[in-house]
């Protein structure tokens, strides 16, 4: 097991290097730092001095990958590639345009992001699986058909509608919770409840449909027929046998997103004014803060790769037949 995990971790390294090279190419080779400076400073204020100042402030005034002027190992380390890309592996993301340290900012914003993403994830999983089991229990009836139609209809509604509509109805018409904002401690609950409910509601359509397909596929297996032949009630067949055996396909899709919960949700956080990583990313995109966007891309892929690893490990826990080679 340990050997397997170590080998999987080693596999992750070339992928992370690939992601790193890709972001480097995207941010520094496709456009030179001069182009970025010209774009950010606007047409009027572009003078060679202003561009130079902009580059020095951000540390973009060095050569890209090879500093011929420096001596010794500094030919490689005193470059944009080393200071901006390689240092990300050490968790050093540099400074945002407002001068704050990105690593510290990320650390302080993970909490609020997780406070929304985690309950949404757990609750959404629970609701969608129960709903799907219900539909499978009543399969091939009018109720099942109506449920599927409802799911397709809910899938077809834009996520923005759920947020805007929910915010309007609950906060503006019913005045139940504040429209947006965030507080520390227990106070946070009243700000979190609406985004969580909306997040669960918005995801129900597609996930219920997906789980329903999995359960329906599982229900045609031989062991289900055996269980029914033994005279077990349908309730027991579904909840004890089918649900457990459907764990493998469910885990495939579910576990991989768990680490990414730290990233938060772009839309929910910015609509509800929650100071998490999602709204941080959106603000950075709107302010064209390239350093922050680059860091978020890197962190996002690290978390995704962690999710893949967790998925493989969870298989062994859910199904003893799966052996890790």
């Amino acid at each position, binding site marked *: 097991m340990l050997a397997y995990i170590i080998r999987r971790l080693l596999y992750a390294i*070339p*992928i992370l290097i*690939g*992601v790193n090279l*890709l*972001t480097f190419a*995207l*941010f520094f080779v*496709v*456009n030179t730092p001069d*182009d*970025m400076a*010209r*774009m950010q400073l606007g047409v009027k204020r572009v003078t060679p001095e202003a561009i130079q100042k902009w580059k020095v402030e951000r540390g973009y005034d060095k050569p890209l990958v090879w500093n011929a002027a420096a001596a010794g190992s500094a030919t490689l380390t005193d470059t944009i590639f080393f200071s901006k890309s390689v240092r990300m592996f050490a968790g050093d993301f540099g400074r945002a345009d407002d001068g704050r340290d990105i690593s510290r900012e990320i650390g302080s914003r993970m909490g609020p992001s997780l406070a929304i993403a985690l309950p949404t994830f757990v609750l959404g999983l629970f609701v969608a699986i129960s709903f799907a089991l219900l539909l499978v229990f009543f399969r091939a009836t009018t109720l099942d058909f109506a449920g599927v139609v409802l799911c*397709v*209809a809910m*899938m*077809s*509604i*834009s*996520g*923005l*509608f759920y947020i*805007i509509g929910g915010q*309007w109805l609950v906060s503006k018409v019913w005045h139940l919770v504040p429209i947006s904002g965030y507080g520390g401690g227990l106070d946070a609950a009243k700000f979190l409840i609406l985004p969580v409910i909306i997040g669960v509601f918005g995801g129900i359509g597609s996930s219920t449909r997906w789980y329903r397909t999995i359960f329906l596929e599982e229900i045609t297996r031989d062991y289900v027929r055996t269980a029914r032949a033994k005279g077990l009630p349908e309730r027991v067949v579904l909840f004890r046998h089918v649900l457990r055996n459907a764990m493998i396909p469910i885990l495939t899709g579910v576990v991989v997103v768990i680490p*990414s919960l730290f*990233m938060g949700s*772009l*839309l929910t956080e910015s609509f509800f004014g929650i100071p998490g990583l999602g709204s941080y*990313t*959106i603000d950075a*995109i*709107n302010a*064209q803060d*390239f350093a922050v*966007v*680059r860091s*978020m*891309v890197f962190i*996002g*892929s690290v978390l*995704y*790769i962690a999710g*893949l690893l967790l998925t493989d490990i969870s298989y062994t826990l859910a199904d003893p037949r799966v052996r890790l080679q």
Partner: protein
Amino acid sequence: MSIQPVLLWSDVLLFVLMASIGGLSLWARRQDALRAAWARVARNPVAMSAATVLAAFVLIGLLDSVHYRARLPAQPGAETRYSVEVNSALDAVLADLRQRAEKTYSAPLATHLFAKEALENSAQREFPRLKFGGAHLGADLAAHEFDIAVRVSRGCAAGMLLWLLMASLWCRLADLELIATLKQLREGNQGSGAGNPATGAVFVTLLGILLLLGIAISLGGGYHVFGTDKVGQDVLYLSLKSIRTGLLIGTLTTLVMLPLAVLLGILAGYVGGWVDDLIQYLYTTLSSIPGVLLIAAAVLMMQVIIDTHPDWFATSAERADARLLALCLILGMTSWTGVARLLRGETLKLRELEFVQAAQAFGVGRFAIMRRHILPNLMHIVLIALVMDFSGLVLAEAVLSYVGVGVDPSTISFGTMINTARMELAREPMVWWSLVAAFAFMFALVLAANLFADAVRDAFDPRSSA
């Protein structure tokens, strides 16, 4: 010539797409398996009624893809010049809606502006009359509701008439008795209409579309059906213009990524070895970056390129078009990985089958096998991916535009409509109509696409038909 045709790149690609769909369907008619699968789709009432709705959207989108520049009024002695504004055939059809702009917000079917203003000849602030909405009523405001009722019923009647005309034409072609068919339809008889159970559904859907069309035209003649937005533009016009953007993003994205995904997927699955390792590494790396972030990063970089090269584009329409295409390209680059992975897995299975091994034994070359024996057997996966991705992409456009990495702000799209309308929600009383209109149109388009995609998947996926 009073107009100068303009061919934007996205138009070209859209027409190429239409032509290739036409060509492919001609080819598919001759393939027994494909014809059988499409026949299953054609007999599915839900799918066919969704297809009818989609066809209406596509028609609007195609009309909106024929672009031209109008000639400016001739100056004596000067050479003919053309307006910098690029219009489309849809603009010409909707010229009334486009040109009858009000000053600012007005509610659907309103006769007055939404906000009070100080009038010239009175000391009080009042709601000023609209320039066009309800202007035909004159001073007789009491007739407002009656007028709307008359227009609605007139529109219904016209839509009904048109529908009856089409139905009778179809019955003539299919050699059916009109009255008997209608009676069967009303009784919900599945056997009606030349034995195809979907015909009734198509006609009912068509009736719905024509009724809405009739009402919209008849009301639109005197009012702003969905109100007006901040700068007084008709919201119905904006919604109709958004359709093209949604369709383009939904189709072109898959189109641009398809050749790459198919090529790499088949290569990885069939050739194997280091080629497989390399291609797998490539798509694992790309797919490990969260989609929205990669798109955001790429779009930011694209903005830098566009902003630093203003001389590349003659008109602002061209620049917006280039941005739209670049967005499709970026979305495609991030989403080809899933299809490539599916195709690789399927190729691995096909490679071991007898007919491929027979071809190998006959000494058929690698690339000939991939082209003649593997590719045709993967087409159903490609088709399913194409239709399944469409609705997700239409929804993604709205989200991306909200995040600020969507289409050019001057491009009319559902995303830009929602994004501008979002600010108006805080007003008291609320300006809800542009938001509701955008969501309603988007819902109709995406729902139809989802239903159609499900039917196509069920008909083509060999696993689901078992």
